[in-house]
């Protein structure tokens, strides 16, 4: 079982191109067009053409099928196409899928993409009122009649338990995460909150959404698209940009795992599925928390950033708020999903690539080892990306 042994994927493939649309409240165009724009931009960045692509990976939630994106971008035959489930948990796993395909020779150039009008179209934050009686629908059905209907409220249930267990207030625990993201976003011209940093007092004064979560604990729902180009490290050598080598890639689901509502297990103070990811990433990359120079940790809601730091072993359980407040690790240097944009985690992978290239707006000098994670509260995934060494 790969969850127990070092896998052989590490170091075989690299992210060689990144591309995105602008991030906005209203893109004014279709999700398919956003996807195609992001894919073309990523290929340009990689120095490749649509004709070079033979694989596509996206999220099961994406509305633009691989075959349609291929047509809209002028791609030819595809030998690999795949989708990953569980919302934002798919982000890093799309890269893992691409790397698996490339490492095994199933495909040579694979583009991962995610595009949506999540702000001007259907917002996840507007909640769920109905589910079909499938097994998946029934799982969420246990909470709907009681009015627990939104992602913020599902996260808040665990966040409340975390605060209780460690004797923290929402302000001291979650405030530093929001302030850090907005500080980085303020310096990022592509960010939604460019030039708009916040203080701890701003966070504390923002209105309740789902107590203990305030408005400033919640990400910025966004219209936009992001794409990533993955190929083998060998082919990467011939391309213009320095590659971001996929030193390790992992998925993880915990015991008694649910989607956003894993309320029935453990103590609700951690993210066991991220623990599964962490064990594999450390084992395969041979790295430890102290080796990581930048952390891009999925932040649709601030509390789960704390739990991720603890699951990865950057600090002990209950200590992450202090860890963030003390700036012990450069975190979400693009501004995160709280500050840059909510692109289902794909913009975070792009930021990791920029850090390794030395082109981030909040560049960590000489960064060569970056951790990236995907959606939290769901079955998830993660990457360790490294500079060619």
């Amino acid at each position, binding site marked *: 079982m790969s969850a127990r042994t070092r896998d052989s994927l590490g170091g075989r493939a690299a992210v060689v191109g990144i591309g995105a649309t602008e991030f906005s409240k209203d893109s004014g165009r279709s999700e398919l067009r956003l996807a195609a724009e992001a894919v073309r931009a990523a290929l340009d960045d990689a120095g490749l053409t649509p004709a070079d692509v033979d694989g596509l990976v996206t999220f099961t939630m994406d509305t633009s099928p691989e075959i349609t994106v291929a047509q809209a971008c002028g791609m030819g035959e595809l030998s690999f196409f795949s989708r990953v489930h569980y919302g934002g948990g798919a982000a890093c796993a799309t890269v893992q899928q691409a790397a698996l395909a490339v490492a095994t020779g199933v495909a040579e150039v694979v583009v991962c993409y995610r595009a949506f009008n999540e702000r001007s179209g259907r917002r996840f934050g507007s909640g769920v009122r109905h589910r079909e009686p499938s097994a998946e629908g029934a799982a969420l059905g246990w909470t709907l009649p009681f*009015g627990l209907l939104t992602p913020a409220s599902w996260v808040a249930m665990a966040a409340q338990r975390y605060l*209780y267990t460690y004797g923290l207030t929402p302000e001291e625990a979650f405030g530093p995460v929001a302030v850090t993201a907005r500080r980085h976003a303020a310096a990022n011209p592509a960010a939604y909150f460019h030039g708009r940093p916040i203080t701890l007092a701003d966070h504390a004064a923002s209105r309740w959404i789902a107590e203990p979560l305030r408005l400033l604990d919640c990400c910025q729902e966004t219209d936009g698209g992001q794409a990533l180009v993955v190929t083998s490290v060998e082919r990467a050598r011939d391309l213009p940009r320095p590659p971001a080598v996929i030193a390790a890639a992992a998925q993880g689901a915990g015991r008694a795992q649910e989607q956003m509502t894993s309320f*029935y297990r453990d103590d609700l103070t951690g993210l066991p599925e991220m623990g599964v990811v962490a064990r594999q990433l450390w084992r395969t990359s041979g790295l430890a928390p102290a080796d990581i120079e930048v952390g891009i940790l999925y932040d649709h809601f601030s509390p789960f950033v704390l739990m991720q730091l603890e699951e990865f072993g950057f600090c002990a359980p209950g200590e992450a708020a202090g860890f963030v407040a003390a700036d012990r690790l450069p975190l979400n240097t693009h501004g995160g999903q709280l500050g840059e944009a909510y692109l289902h985690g794909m913009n975070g992978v792009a930021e990791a690539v920029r850090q390794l290239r030395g082109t981030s707006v909040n560049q960590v000098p000489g960064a060569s080892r970056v951790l990236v994670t995907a959606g939290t509260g769901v079955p998830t995934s993660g990457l360790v990306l490294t500079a060619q060494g």
Partner: protein
Amino acid sequence: MGDDDGLDDDLHARLKGYEGRPSTVAGAGRDPVNAPMIRHWCEVLGDTNPAYTGPGATAPPTMLQAWIMAGLSPHTGRARPYEELLALLDEAGCTSIVATDCEQEYLRPLRPGDEVTYDSVIESVSPRKTTKLGTGYFVTTRTDVRVGPDLVGTHRFRVLKYAPARRPAKPPERRPRPVVNRDNAGFWEGVRDHRLLLQRCADCAGLRFPWLPGCADCGCPDWDTVDACGEGTVFSYVVLHHPPFPAFEPPYAIGLVELAEGVRMVSNVVGVPYDKVRIGMPVRLEFRRYDDELVLPVFKGVTA
């Protein structure tokens, strides 16, 4: 509310003609001030002021109006001008009435045995106003309450006499439905019978919730059910403020309840203000009907 400016309001001109005219002449309280009515009042309002009990008790001053309410019997002393005013309003469709203002002055306390009399005058009638309830007129009366010759209190009272706004016949908003399928139908059948059924693994005897067709601990597909005893504690909770949803009025509390049997379920914590729900709070199962199709197991907070 707003003035319906510019409307030709003949009715208002006629109503204004009643200003200054009596609404009650020589009215008498139905009963003397008495201890049982005082006790009922204090019991309902949770008023434990010792001044209202025992020898030398006084009546709560705010009961002033209660002593002169007609109740279900005919008004005594209702004056003709006031009857006419009400009739005019009724004819104009302003058939409903709601009180909006009350100003009382208490000159001396009332005591059991005091027999009150009163006289009222129509002080003013407002122009036509539109409110959330409907469109109508504010009528202000002033009442002098006496015991014998002594003025003991005054009572200024404003009511809105209005035509109810027509509300579009909209079906009441309903809560989201449970998601029922072949794997969990037994649970919801139990709820309909006011039973909270947990699955019990036929092999390892582990209890589980939510319902699934196999045991997460040992994988055994066979199971039976046991009734939850209904006792539990709040394991975690959320107070939902935004966004609002039909059939729910934020802020409201949703609890993750750990049952005495060790399993958890999401439900509402009821009987406790949303901001008083706490982790560790004991709760007890009850069943509530929300509409003709929906019964839910909810948990009532047990306060010390």
